[in-house]
């Protein structure tokens, strides 16, 4: 699913063909689990970020907002002169972001008491939120379904 998402995003001109390249935050902070599946949302968003970062080849820039504490500490040390400015120079502020990935996973579950058949239709919606205008510049929906019947002894 994450590979498909990465392909979808890279195929979108607003995201992948802009000059300068858009800055994007991809983390789990605004990803909501409203389904009955216990999931590790970090596993999904991390995989997506790594996949996008590798495939984008500079067409998108990813902001590591989840590491902002680390960045601020290093910037402070540099400005206090406790460490040198390193090789990339100083910037006025840490990078702001143009867009942020938000999303929701929901599910529709059914269990038949007579047959023990359990089915779960899951739907994951990811959207790219413009952090200045509040508009959604890209949306993707991914669905999958599982069904299985338990043994009669467990019904």
């Amino acid at each position: 699913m994450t590979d498909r998402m990465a392909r979808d995003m890279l195929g979108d001109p607003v995201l992948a063909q802009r000059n300068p390249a858009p800055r994007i935050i991809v983390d789990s902070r605004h990803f909501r689990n409203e389904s009955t599946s216990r999931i590790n949302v970090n596993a999904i968003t991390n995989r997506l970020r790594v996949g996008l970062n590798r495939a984008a080849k500079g067409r998108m820039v990813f902001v590591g907002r989840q590491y902002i504490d680390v960045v601020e500490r290093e910037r402070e040390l540099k400005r206090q002169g406790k460490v040198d400015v390193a090789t990339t120079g100083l910037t006025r502020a840490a990078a702001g972001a143009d867009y942020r990935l938000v999303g929701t996973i929901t599910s529709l579950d059914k269990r038949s008491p007579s047959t023990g058949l359990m089915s779960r239709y899951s739907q994951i919606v990811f959207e790219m939120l413009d952090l200045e205008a509040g508009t959604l510049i890209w949306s993707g929906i991914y669905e999958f379904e599982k069904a299985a019947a338990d043994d009669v002894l467990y019904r």
Partner: protein
Amino acid sequence: MKWMGASCATAACVLGLAVSGCQTAFQDHEKKLVVAPELMNDFLADKPASTHRLYRNVLVHGDRNLVLNYIRAGLAALDVGDLDAAEASFDVAVEKIDAIYADNKEAKEARSKFTKENIKDFKGESYERAMAFYYRGLLYLMRGDYGNAQASFGSGLLQDVYAEDQEYAQDFASLAFLRGWAYRCQGSESAAVQSFKEAFALHKKQLEQEVRPVKVALSRLRAPLGNHNVLLVGEAGAAPRKMATGQFNERLIYRRGAPHSVAWMVFRGADEHVAAYPFEDIFWQASTRGGRPVDYIMEGKAAFKEGAETVGKVALAAGAATGMYALQTQDRNAAIASGVLLLGGLFAEAISNATRPDADLRQWDNLPENIYLGTAEIPPTLKTLEVAHFDATDKPVSYANRTVNVTFTGQCGIAWTRTVSALAVPDEAPDSIAPEYVVKKDPASATSNEAAESAE
């Protein structure tokens, strides 16, 4: 007379073999495994010491009771405040409960006339499965993982769909309320509103239908206000008891655990005074489940056992009468007929004795009887609350007041307490295993007979 002696000797031999081979109280799968000491020590190393007597059963009972032992021990770990051990235990349990058991060898064997139902891997009855998800959800709330908390409470609701009377299916009001709370903490407000609505509709239905020994049902719980940031969860009373009824103990029924009179609880801080009201009756959840499909299998086994017993008795009586006649008349043919009837009768009796329609009585015995819920606005700086208990006439109930921690990990806090310690149970769950002296070696875990015996 030689032919008569031979006939009787054969019958006695068959009887002896049949009875000694088949009529044993415990079947092979119910025996304990002998576990090497080093394996046991490794397993127990990261669990709280007071729960070791419960956790050791995970290895000693084997896979058949894996879920049962993890949920008992995991609840005890939660009660003594070891969240890591509790989480690991409930993770294993809910994963197994959620697993689909199709083409499972033990499940097939449990349907055999000659094997007890309790050979199957324990997943618990619907209420026990739902409660496993309830505790997993509470643990997620304590960690501030609201998405997975609501998923757990939602999965718990799904475990409750198998009621024979659909009126009682998926009616765990407390799980719906808790799911709403987790949704709210996550910021999914519309889903929260829907869940709270569902919770109060289910609770109202319970109040209309329920007949209770202690009239504590009139709950005054309301949906949380927008400023409420702490969930208060109380538990009181003892788990529902599983019992067997029917001619051959083939039918599963429930009885209430030891009675209690807690009608509501109060969580007190320096300036706080928040009530938690009853919102779930676990016995009611267990007892309104109705018939299970497996009950028909057990009834079939019982009917077969009764039929074989009747055939055996009739054949033995006829064989004895024919034998008496043969003795009196010295009739060779009558003697042969007597032998055949006796043999047939003994065989039928042996078959009857070997048939095991016993209902599976393994039970999660450290569950509570009632769940109490409340919500409040409490400053995140407040770390502990005192809990007091009251009966239906608002008189204090003589449980020791307990100090409970308020856990704030995310934006919502939670305080959880219970009147009965989760450790106040025997080492082993009722009807879960044969007594200590009946053991068998587990080739995968025991290093040698000597090492294994010293472990015991």
